[in-house]
């Protein structure tokens, strides 16, 4: 039984390989989106949940990742398997840059500055002229590996799945290590952390850079999945959605990110049909949620479901 636990994620991966056999194209598309948003939530959690900085910049990371990967593929013809990590690195660099104000500014100032930054990026997309293709966005070429073309939702799924597992594993390793512990330490008791030789500055910057990287990759996947990118996707609604995902799922946990990212990304589907009332219901849902399940679904489960263990910041040692 213990041996099985060790290969749990491998098993999951193998099982998930068969999903496209069971889905319609549209359902497959939804699943792709869900995986993307799990990564988005995970990346956001690094900054919001683990090091506890009030950054509204996550949606900008998403957009920068989507735009950089999309533009690299469209304008420079760089194949996706190179554009994607490159886009991730570019976004990671932006994340690193935003880490600096995070060190200096108080909670609300940071929130306001990152909010401003995100809107500024959207403005740049809209008014970027030939460089960013303006308000109507642009199409992204079909991702290819040699002669393999990933043109359908089901094909693209495999790209998404592989990238998802790779990133998730890497980030989980990082979180469940001294690095993850230093994130939480610096958040909880900065002085005590410094007294243990933790460099707060480096820690926060690392969290921001990693966050940028992860969410940037997610954005790149979005480009590949949607095959079309428009500036509208990266505005206020997106900012709020990311927040909801993190808080709904559970701040500061990997499981929470998985729950929040997948459930909330599918919410528009569930709210479909009541187009007019969508905005209103969304808002209502948020408020109800904040009032009654403030620690997120994960917190709720921990509290009320017996036997569920809190997620640890270390890996099980054989």
């Amino acid at each position: 039984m213990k041996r099985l636990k060790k290969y749990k994620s491998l098993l999951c991966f193998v099982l998930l390989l068969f999903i496209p056999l069971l889905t319609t194209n549209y359902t497959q598309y939804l699943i792709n989106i869900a995986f993307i948003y799990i990564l988005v939530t995970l990346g956001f959690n690094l900054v919001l949940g683990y090091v506890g900085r009030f950054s509204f910049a996550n949606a900008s990371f998403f957009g920068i990742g989507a735009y950089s990967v999309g533009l690299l593929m469209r304008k420079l013809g760089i194949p996706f398997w190179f554009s994607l990590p490159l886009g991730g690195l570019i976004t990671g660099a932006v994340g690193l840059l935003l880490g600096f104000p995070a060190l200096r500014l108080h909670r609300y100032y940071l929130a306001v500055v990152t909010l401003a930054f995100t809107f500024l990026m959207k403005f740049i997309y809209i008014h970027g002229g030939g460089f960013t293709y303006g308000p109507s966005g642009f199409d992204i070429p079909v991702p290819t590996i040699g002669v393999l073309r990933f043109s359908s939702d089901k094909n693209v799924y495999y790209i998404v799945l592989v990238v998802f597992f790779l990133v998730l594993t890497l980030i989980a390793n990082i979180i469940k290590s001294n690095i993850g512990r230093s994130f939480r330490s610096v958040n909880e008791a900065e002085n005590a952390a410094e007294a243990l030789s933790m460099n707060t500055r480096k820690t926060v910057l690392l969290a921001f850079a990693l966050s940028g990287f992860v969410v940037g990759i997610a954005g790149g996947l979005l480009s590949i999945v949607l095959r079309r990118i428009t500036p509208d996707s990266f505005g206020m609604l997106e900012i709020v959605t990311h927040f909801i995902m993190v808080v709904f799922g559970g701040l500061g946990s990997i499981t929470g990110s998985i729950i929040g990212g997948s459930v909330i990304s599918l919410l528009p589907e569930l709210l479909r049909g009541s187009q007019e009332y969508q905005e209103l219901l969304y808002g209502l849902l948020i408020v109800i949620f904040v009032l009654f399940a403030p620690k997120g679904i994960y917190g709720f489960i921990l509290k009320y479901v017996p036997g569920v263990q809190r997620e640890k910041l270390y890996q099980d040692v054989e």
Partner: protein
Amino acid sequence: MKSYTRMSNEDNRHPFLLVKGLTVEFGGLSALMNVDLEVSEGGIRGIIGPNGAGKTTLFNALTGFVKAAAGEVKYQGEDILGLRPYEIAKKGVIRTFQGGGIFSEMNVLENLMTGYHRLLESSLLEVAFRFRKNKSEAKKIWGKALRLLEALKLKDLAESLAGDLSFGQQRLVELGRALMSDPKLLLLDEPAAGLSSSERDDLIQLLKGIAGGNGIYILLTDHSMDFVMGICDYITVLNYGQVIGEGKPEDIQKNREVIEAYLGHEGESDASGR
């Protein structure tokens, strides 16, 4: 108890810790004035004084949390005044906090593990990809943490949230966390505060065990004379930010100035600085 590195101050040219003329000012008030301190022998060194005498300020200045207006601090011959706290800690100077600086949202085991930070060797990529080096280091950290918990008799609480523990247990966790880093100089700020008398006795035994022949210099503060007398080999007395006496416990007890300082503060409202 796991045996630590031998006395780090094999080189007898430098005192292990040398503080000269340390002065700290807060907005015109002198919290510390011209403090001299020398630690060159092992054992447990006590810093005592009434409330507001500057004990915590001294620790803060030694560990980089507070800026000094004047003076010098040489640790193993090296100037450490002006360095950032994490840089000083990296050199093996580990301190605990008065209010208890444990990470309450983490469990006890995780708290201990954070203490290993100073000794870490794995890089980011090694961690992310879980190369063998990182895996074995993780194992090492795990093992050391559990051994320490066992020695501190906290093993059963390993997975309990640190915030749920009693104050005395939290102080023990903080101590264990500090020990995880193989400290060379341990600065304990009021380690006995808030402990029951049996917990205090346990702490005394524990600290004696750590200091005795293990190569760790311990500096501790407390404003309870009894505790300090029972554990320290040498004592420095502060009052109003200045050193007013130094010596073995028996000598200090007889020192008139010291007695007056304590008597003078009884029933008086706490004066901070001048």
